[in-house]
């Protein structure tokens, strides 16, 4: 009886996790702003905790933090207003030309390939369509893909708003969860929470550092190369970095395309590509060791698999949260193994020297 009761939490955790995943798959569009807001609050929570540990009230801290952030944001906007306005105007004027140029280039490359294939034109086009159809369709539909991201821009306002309430509540949700948890399993629940907290905290805080570094370094690099819309490209590269490997690809593609259009040479695009590859190498060699404790210690192939599954199942949101979700799954397995090993006596025995008498 006791034995089966002890195994209950593991099964229950997996059942609850499975049910939550099913509910999430059904409601992920509606839940997106809440999930992003929770991540936002989670990243900022240690800062609030640091001040709270000095005995200050949480509500006052969060309100003052938001007011300070708003003042900083307004100050930054006032300082960078001319740059932001000129970048936006430049992009507004050039965006249609960029897109039509991109589509023309894709179409021209398609025609060129059809000519070079040793087949009659119609069959060559069919063969090309079947082989590269998907990739070409993606490139041709880039404008509509970009437009589909517009709803996420609405989250820019919604996420801090919902995040405000998450921050106000702070550890209250966890404490209520512990109170609801059957008393005997409180320690196990805390073990699981602690592992998930480590995984999520490390990943999200590491991500904030990486996104900031990529945004700042690529902005100055693009300005140094004399590329127009440097702020816009750097923002795309930085924000895209929330999806592993995606920041580099977006920087090279968007920045390279804009540089090629601006200077009319392939060399300009190559310079931008070299800049982003350089940033990636610097990030890997200089920044990652500093934030190594922020990594999930997962194999690159596991990350890639998680990204493919996440993207295919939940779209953009799946891409953003695929890697931390895989990390949580890893933590769940680790906790389950730890429970199993402890119950079966497979855990470490007493320390060496235990047999020596106490003197």
């Amino acid at each position, binding site marked *: 009886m006791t034995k089966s009761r002890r195994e209950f939490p593991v099964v229950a955790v997996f059942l609850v996790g499975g049910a939550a995943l099913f509910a999430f798959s059904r409601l992920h569009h509606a839940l997106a702003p809440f999930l992003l807001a929770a991540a936002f609050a989670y990243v900022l929570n240690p800062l609030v905790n640091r001040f*709270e540990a000095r005995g*200050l009230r949480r509500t006052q801290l969060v309100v003052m933090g938001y007011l300070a952030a708003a003042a900083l944001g307004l100050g930054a906007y006032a300082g960078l207003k001319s740059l932001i306005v000129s970048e936006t105007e430049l992009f507004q004027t050039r965006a249609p030309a960029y897109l039509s140029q991109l589509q023309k280039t894709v179409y021209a490359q398609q025609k060129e390939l059809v000519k070079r294939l040793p087949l009659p034109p119609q069959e060559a086009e069919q063969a090309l369509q079947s082989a590269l159809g998907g990739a070409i369709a993606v490139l041709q539909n880039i404008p509509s893909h970009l437009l589909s991201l517009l709803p996420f821009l609405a989250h820019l306002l919604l996420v801090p708003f919902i995040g405000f309430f998450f921050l106000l509540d702070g550890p209250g949700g966890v*404490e209520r969860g*512990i109170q609801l948890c059957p*008393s005997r399993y*409180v*320690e196990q629940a805390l*073990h699981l929470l602690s592992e998930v907290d*480590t995984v999520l905290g490390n990943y999200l805080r590491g991500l904030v550092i990486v996104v900031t570094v990529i945004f700042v370094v690529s902005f100055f690099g693009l300005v140094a190369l004399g590329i127009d819309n440097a702020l816009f490209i750097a923002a795309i590269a930085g924000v895209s970095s929330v999806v592993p490997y995606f920041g580099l690809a977006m920087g090279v593609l968007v920045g390279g395309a804009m540089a090629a259009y601006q200077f009319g040479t392939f060399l300009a695009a190559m310079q931008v590509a070299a800049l982003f590859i350089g940033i990636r190498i610097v990030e890997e060699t200089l920044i990652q060791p500093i934030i190594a404790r922020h990594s999930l210690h997962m194999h690159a192939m596991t990350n890639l698999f998680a990204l493919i599954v996440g993207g295919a199942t939940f779209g953009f949101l799946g891409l953003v949260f695929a890697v931390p979700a895989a990390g949580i799954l890893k933590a769940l397995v680790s906790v389950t193994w730890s429970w199993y090993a402890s119950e079966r006596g497979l855990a470490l025995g007493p320390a060496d020297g235990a047999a020596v008498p106490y003197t």
Partner: protein
Amino acid sequence: MSALKSIKRWFIDPQFARKKEFLRSLDIFKELHDRDLGCLVSALHSRTYREGEVVFVEGDIGRALFVLESGSVKLTRPSDGPRPEILYELRPGDFFGEMALLESLPRTATATATEKCHLHLLYKSKLDTLLHSEPRIGVTIMRHLARLLSARLRRMNAEPKLSAAAND
């Protein structure tokens, strides 16, 4: 002056201050500075237990230290008789389950709330984090645990001698 007091009152969290004062009154944390106690309060989880509710059962793997703020908890072990043997009755300010902070081994007794009680839990990994981020807190707790362990070992060593002397 009163305006300053009002502003301070508006900023200071009374619940947090109360928890800090409670921890300061405990032997295990009395050497900690004010800021360290603040970090410790942030690291603790709290839970209220109803009368008769089991905190942990003998044989469960221990992973947390429990600090009793109010109410009472009894530590029991099965006995040959119909009722379990009561090893100790804990009162407010007592802590138990501390050895779980050193190693995750099975609990050696069952803890049950004998009346409605409020407990603070310091989870092992939180202490590990504190050991790295705030070494002074970790060292203070660990030193106290080492002293406690040493005292218990000395008592265990002395007890057989005392009982042997009594038999003689």
